[in-house]
């Protein structure tokens, strides 16, 4: 069988293209406006924060193990006093794509925590050292206890915090353009950007005239600017094993935010690396389908 490629010069095709184009325009405007609405609402009425630099953003993003370990250290020494990680188990700390602790380290860390177990054969509840399979859990046994210990405020669980918060991105002026930008960049760091910025946005003094409630603190990022959490970080409060990493508030905030992103999305590395392979496969497959289509349709004139 010979392949003949016929010129597709008929007038008809031109007019098909015209209506095709106008319809596409309508469609793009449609999709754009609708989805920009989504982008806007996904971000809520939150603060505007530009994209921050993270090792895990981008198509080939991966977590920086050392950073996750430092972040975990900050969590453990600072955040864990009030905040839990109920959806994480100790064993997660040694799974691939995470902070990469050894199983022995995880066992030792877990053993420092106590969990209530039981009932035993006598029908009594008892406490025992935690096992790697136990949840990292929370510092308080219930919401009421947490509130009582924190002046009525409830320190939220942090397992998902890096996905449960969001910020707006600086607008490029027209919503559909923002939308294309965000999808094209695979912008999934809005939540972690929020956490990072929040931790750094405690000014010395609230702006003049701002009425701060009893036991509340001013924060630039937090909705309403009144937050019950005092600035948790300050320079040199955590001692890093790596001597070349600065022990500044900014570094702590960055490290713990990265750790919380991993906590919220522990399969991120696996997802991105599989994603690359899937996309490559689809590009090859779609190209072959296109060639097959072109060859088949070359048999009929006018197309």
């Amino acid at each position, binding site marked *: 069988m010979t392949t*003949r490629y016929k010129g597709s010069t*008929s*007038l*008809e*095709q031109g*007019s098909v293209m015209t*209506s*095709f184009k106008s*319809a596409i325009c*309508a*469609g793009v405007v*449609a*999709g*754009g*406006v*609708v989805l920009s*609405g*989504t982008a*806007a*609402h*996904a971000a*809520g009425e939150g603060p505007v924060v530009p994209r921050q630099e993270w090792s895990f953003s981008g198509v080939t993003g991966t977590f920086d193990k050392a950073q996750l370990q430092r972040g975990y250290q900050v969590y453990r020494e600072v955040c864990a006093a009030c905040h839990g990680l109920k*959806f*994480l188990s100790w064993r997660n700390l040694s799974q691939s794509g995470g902070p990469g602790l050894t199983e022995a380290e995880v066992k030792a860390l877990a053993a420092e925590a106590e969990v209530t177990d039981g009932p035993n054969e006598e029908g009594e509840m008892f406490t025992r050292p935690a096992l790697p399979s136990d949840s990292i859990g929370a510092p308080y046994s219930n919401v009421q206890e947490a509130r009582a210990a924190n002046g009525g405020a409830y320190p*939220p669980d942090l397992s*998902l915090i890096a*996905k*449960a*918060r969001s910020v707006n991105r600086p607008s490029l002026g027209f*919503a559909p353009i923002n939308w294309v930008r*965000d*999808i094209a960049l*695979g912008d*999934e760091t*809005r*939540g972690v950007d929020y956490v990072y910025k929040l931790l750094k946005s405690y000014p010395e003094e609230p702006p003049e005239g701002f009425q701060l409630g009893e036991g509340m603190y001013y924060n630039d990022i937090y*909705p309403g600017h009144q937050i019950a959490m005092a600035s948790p970080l300050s320079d040199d409060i955590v001692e890093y094993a790596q001597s070349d990493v600065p022990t500044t508030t900014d570094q702590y905030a960055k490290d713990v935010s990265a750790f919380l992103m991993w906590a*919220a999305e522990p*399969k991120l590395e696996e*997802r*991105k690396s*599989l*994603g*690359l392979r*899937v*996309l490559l496969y*689809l590009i090859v*497959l*779609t190209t072959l*389908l*296109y060639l*097959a*289509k072109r060859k*088949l*349709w070359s*048999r*009929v*004139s*006018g*197309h």
Partner: protein
Amino acid sequence: MSHESTYHPQSATERWIDDRLPLPRMASDFMAMPTPRNLNYFYTFGGILTFCLLVQIVTGIVLAMHYKPSAMNAFASVEHIMRDVNWGWLLRYTHAVGASMFFIAVFIHMARGLWYGSYKAPREILWMLGVVIFLLMMATAFMGYALVWGQMSFWGVTVITNLFSSIDALIPGLGTGIVQWIWGDYAVSDATLNRMFALHYLLPFAIAGTVGLHIWALHVTGSNNPQGVEVKQNTDTLPFHPYFTVKDLFALGVFCLFFAWVVFQAPNYLGHADNYIEANPLSTPAHIVPEWYFLPFYAILRAVTFDVLFIPAKLGGVIAMFGSIVVLFFLPWLDRSRVKSAKHRPIYKWFLVALFVSVCALGYLGAKPAEGIYVVLSQIFTAYYFAHFLIVMPFIGIIERPSDRPNSITESVLGGSGAPAGAAAAPETR
């Protein structure tokens, strides 16, 4: 026009089956279906939608094996899927993003139908079945989103189910009764979640059945085409296979590239951050917004801020919202033009563009707070939405002079008298 069967049993076994249950004949005739040769890429979305439905059903069934439909455990079981189930994150993200992809495809598919007049005789039932599918999709998506049992799930269900209480304004007590009947409780609760799960599992199969009817109706009337001129001769068509199977597959490949990009690079972009907070009946989110594909209808709901006669604003909004979809059932009779494709309708075309713009604008406004200028704009676009179907469609058809149309599809593709030669006339014989 329903085409003649071209199936010839090749063996005694095939003949035996054909005499009893002619499934091979059906499959063969499906593949051979004469299809207008001038279909453009907008016509590939039917196949893409079938793919979307399959993806949702397959991923959904596996997710259901790990999900726990109780207020106590639902949210945690979703996290269990994300963290502990093998490939659970992939299943869930594909399912969640898949819902958005499904709606992107269905909106394009519907816009295609509107643009080329695919709802007109003899395809009225085909179109109406499509509207039924769209309604079922909306119900299914709504209930599926509820299952996550995050803050937006919970409050979305609360807001939308509460709409029925507006009936109280007409018949006191009836609305509240309906709402409590839907909830199975005095509030959105465990019982509500449980039935949402049952229905979310059921409805996709109702969709699949209706899709079967939709495709059956398609095979009776044949596809419409961008010219809106019916098939008149053999040269107007090409067999569905291989010409349109390969074209549909290529389009599906492109669609999957976009689908995969979102699943792997921005899986939560189309969702709402608040839904990663577990449902809490004691804490209302600052802004309750539905998923993006409901925003145009949500905007219509909120656009009615005034009483109409004895109908209070809230009930009016509900009627407008449901009315915006019900009106689609009547399109075949509302459109008085004898010309199908907007391509040949120089005036109507622009009104149709205005409709598309209105729906998009409503989608944008649905995500904005219901205050100030946003309400006024919602009212203007809602007014146009209904005016388009109830006023523009019936009257433009009467006053408009359509532009010249080709005598046949063949003429439109090949130009001239439409007498094709050799290969073009009977490509399948080569």
